């Protein structure tokens, strides 16, 4: 009667249920996650720690590394901001209006999820190169897109596009029309209704999408390296710097930079997980 004893003490690992095979499923899940994710990541952290603090800091916080973080985080932040604005706009248009091509546009939103990053990279690099379709136009205004930090930003806007759209869309679709009608009846203008009633309602979803887009963009590699030009201190992103260190067999330095990136990912993961949980709870309440 160990189950009774456990319930009497008030602490139980697994709530009893008629649904079978918890042990097997849990065992496979934990074994798989440990072998594929947990142990390799621990190996990275140990490698990062397997050096003096001075050599860790020399690699992780060198001027070149700091410039790379600035670019990775800065461009990711700006790209996520653009995606926040355009994502809310696109979600609004897709949910609230009917126009020819709407279904196609809706389906295309997921393209950055499905298109391999290297393909996106060569395509964007070609488009933005000084003789490319968009690059030519920008060159006429004296702006160079490809092989500059602007190119990094463009690639990150591309890969982050779906996140805000896809988090805002369902919330916007579930919004009660009565709320907006009430605002209108109380004399609010359409603009005031949208900014004071609709936007606050979708703000949590939009911020969740923003965080997800930012987290994804910080670590992005494939779509960026083709367009960035990869000049140290100028257009070299942090993941590329890891690869550069690795190619010079500087494993400790690569691990040190990777540890910094991993720490940032963990922080963003915790934030976005909390935001997503809140969003799901609110969704269940509606």
């Amino acid at each position, binding site marked *: 009667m160990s189950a009774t004893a456990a319930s009497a003490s008030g602490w139980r690992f697994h709530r009893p249920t008629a*649904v079978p095979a918890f042990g097997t499923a849990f065992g496979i899940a934990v074994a798989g996650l440990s072998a594929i994710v947990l142990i390799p990541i621990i190996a990275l952290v140990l490698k990062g720690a397997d050096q003096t603090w001075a050599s860790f800091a020399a690699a992780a916080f060198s001027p070149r590394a700091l410039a790379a973080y600035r670019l990775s985080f800065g461009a990711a932040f700006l790209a996520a901001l653009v995606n926040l604005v355009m994502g809310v706009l696109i979600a609004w248009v897709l949910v609230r209006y009917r126009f020819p091509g709407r279904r196609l546009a809706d389906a295309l939103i997921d393209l950055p999820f499905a298109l391999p990053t290297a*393909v996106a990279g060569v395509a964007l690099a070609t488009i933005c190169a000084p003789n490319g379709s968009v690059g030519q136009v920008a060159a006429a205004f004296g702006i160079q897109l490809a092989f500059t930090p602007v190119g990094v930003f463009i690639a990150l806007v591309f890969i982050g596009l779906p996140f805000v759209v896809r988090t805002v869309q369902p919330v916007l679709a579930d919004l009660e029309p009565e709320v907006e009608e009430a605002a209108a009846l109380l004399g609010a203008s359409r603009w005031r209704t949208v900014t004071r009633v609709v936007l606050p309602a979708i703000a949590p979803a939009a911020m969740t999408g923003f965080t997800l887009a930012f987290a994804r963009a910080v*670590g992005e590699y494939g779509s960026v390296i083709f367009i960035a030009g990869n000049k140290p201190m100028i257009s070299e992103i942090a993941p590329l710097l890891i690869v550069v260190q690795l190619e010079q067999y500087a494993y400790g330095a690569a691990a040190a930079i990777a540890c910094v990136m991993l720490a940032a990912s963990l922080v963003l993961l915790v934030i976005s997980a909390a935001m997503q949980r809140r969003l799901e709870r609110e969704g269940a309440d509606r």
Partner: protein
Amino acid sequence: MRLAADTRPALRDPSGIAWLLIAAALAWILLLLVLPLATVLWEALHKGLPRFLEAVKEPDTLASIRLTLLVAAIAVPVNLVLGVAMAWAIAKHEFRGRAMLTALIDLPISVSPVVSGLVFVLLFGAQGWLGPWLQERDIKIIFALPGMVLATIFVTLPYVARTLIPIMRRQGVDEEEAAATLGAGAWTTLARVSLPNAGLALLYGVLLTNARAMGEFGAVSVVSGSIRGETNTMPLHVEILHNEYDEVGAFSVAALLALLAVVTLVLKVWLERRMQARAGVGG
């Protein structure tokens, strides 16, 4: 589907503004999504179909296609089993630390692909923790197929579980409990009740896993060493050809991958419509 604004004038935006917003959204989609896709196809085909086919039939390209299919053929089934097990434990059971396990599943999505590859180099590479032990036994993992498969499994681990968990949770455990009460074993319950109920979501999860497995670049690039014709998957081959200024070659391989993405999107739309239809009938 009818729009609320059709019958509720208070929700109607001034039509000038509505069209302006539609135009802005479509212009953005055209510039950011359609233009890259069209560029890939144009660059691959503008010198003629024969030139495209010639590029695809090049031995190194064929080798990269074979390797990509092989890696996906191993990684996708592994992630199918792991994903179903994780979803079963998390969606159908209550246990301590469930939130932590859920967060752990998401980890590969938020980690940089380069870091995802690096962890395996540090574990199995010549300078890695297990490197000397593996070398003694002449087992090659890094710069070889096992490393590429491991990195691909790491990167695509979350997708089956993430698509299954929400729908499995929504469906509750009533039917599973009924099956168990009627004497069904675990396997019967899973194969006859839970998975058919979540069938379309499962299919979508596999589809997404496959698309990401075949398209993974960063993680695989770190562990593979990109040896032409040997450890070179299609995305890596795109990079090699691009660096050699073989634009038609690079874009021909890229076009094949873009085709994979388009097929994935089409199937996704089809699956979503089936799911909506089923939900409409069921509830």
